[in-house]
């Protein structure tokens, strides 16, 4: 459970977040949508403590994250770009993250699911982009954290891995985890998201379910509803 109150952030003169209020509930997949530059990444980075907010508060499971770093052991984060130390082997990277988290996690079942076992002894620089993304998924999910933050999680995944990833998300959701997801892939949102947040120029333009979004912006297809919002902005 993540509660965000009046979150603000300015880079130079550029107001990126203009007072965001948001609840990321347990047992729910929340999708954050919005065009490029709408503040999605800044929102995620604020929750992760990578960006220092200019105002407002963020609470995770009832505690403020301000000036803390330990709260991050309650987050599994899946970054957009998978770049690893190139001379480490996959199993060494996994060992490293285990060391840092002080926890063993569950590597085996996930490595099985995503067909990573054969690559454990390979240096990370030899892995393909898709495989790296699967390693990323493994690292994010192996500790069963109560909150997940996923930034464009499906980039580069093959169809089979994509199906398995969706199944994994549903399983975690049913375990009562809070899941925050950003993506540009509309079908993924339709399939998975319970709550949809639409960011526009640093404000929450819409917040509700997928069906509400569709009926409010007049289209059977989510894709077209989103297009309506975006073109309406320019009209």
């Amino acid at each position: 459970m993540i509660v965000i109150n009046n979150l603000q952030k300015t880079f130079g003169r550029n107001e990126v977040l203009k007072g965001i209020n948001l609840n990321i509930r347990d047992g729910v997949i929340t999708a954050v949508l919005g065009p490029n530059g709408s503040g999605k990444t800044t929102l995620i980075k604020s929750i992760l403590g990578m960006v220092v907010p200019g105002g407002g508060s963020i609470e995770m499971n009832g505690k403020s994250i301000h000036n803390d770093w330990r709260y991050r052991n309650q987050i599994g984060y899946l970054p957009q770009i998978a770049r690893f130390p190139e001379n480490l082997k996959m199993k060494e990277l996994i060992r490293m993250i285990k060391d840092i988290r002080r926890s063993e996690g569950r590597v085996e079942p996930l490595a099985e699911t995503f067909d990573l076992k054969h690559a454990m002894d390979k240096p990370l620089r030899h892995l393909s982009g898709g495989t790296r993304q699967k390693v990323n998924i493994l690292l994010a999910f192996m500790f069963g954290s109560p909150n997940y933050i996923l930034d464009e999680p499906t980039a580069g995944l093959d169809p089979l891995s994509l199906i398995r990833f969706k199944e994994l998300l549903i399983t975690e959701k049913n375990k009562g985890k809070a899941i925050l997801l950003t993506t540009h892939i509309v079908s993924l949102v339709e399939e998975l998201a319970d709550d949809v947040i639409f960011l526009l120029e640093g404000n929450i333009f819409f917040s509700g379910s997928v069906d509400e979004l569709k009926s409010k912006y007049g289209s059977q297809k989510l894709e077209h509803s989103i297009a309506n919002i975006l073109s309406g902005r320019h009209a």
Partner: protein
Amino acid sequence: MRTFYPADMLKILKYSLFDLTRSRWTYGYFLFYLIFTFGLLYFSNDVSKALISMMNIILILNPLIATLFGALYFYSSKEFAELLLALPLKRSSIFLGKYFGLSLSLSLSYLLGTGIPFAFYGIQATGQIWNFLLLTIAGLFLTFIFTGLSFLVSIRFENTIKGFGISIFIWLFFAIIYDGIFLLTLLIFEQYPLDKYALIMTLFNPIDLSRVLIMLKLDISALMGYTGAVFNKFLGTGMGMIVAFGSLVIWIVVPVFVFTRFVKKKDF
């Protein structure tokens, strides 16, 4: 909450070392020093002369390599740093771990690359062992100092090209430009007493400091140069070396401290 968590920093250091000690660059640096030092000892036949030549290379090359690798490593591990930043770690643990990981890996290449040939040629028996050790220590200082400076520049500038450019300029400044300006001022103001000025100017250049440190020990007045002579005159050999050592330590501590301040405030 404890403000410093060395265990986490050591973990980052350990895995940075794992990664770096397998890098081609680390082997290249090691092999260069190995071949160069062997060659020098083979051709000069005189350990003390070889030491002077070594010194001239080390004073230029160690800062250059630390500068280049510092910026290269910092920028290339930026995305991975973002993954680490999302883990339950203090920011300072991550970046100090990286700093010490890189400094140690460069130091290792340098130590082995120069140490193996000298050990092979029996430096122990020549009575030059202390001079060699002092040269080695100066080289280590320069590695840590210039890695720190390039990390400091790299965290400050988001743009890779800018970061590289400024880092290399800092090296160029201390290796060449600084001495040029220094000599010029000495020439222009030659009718004034400049000893103290020269002494202070030397403290502000880590490369000059390292040179003075070695020269004081070698005690070859012909090679000591003006600043070395000034150090000798004002402070004597013992005190001069202590001042030079202390200043070199400050040259490590201050940039790294400022670096950690930047790390704490930065938006990644």
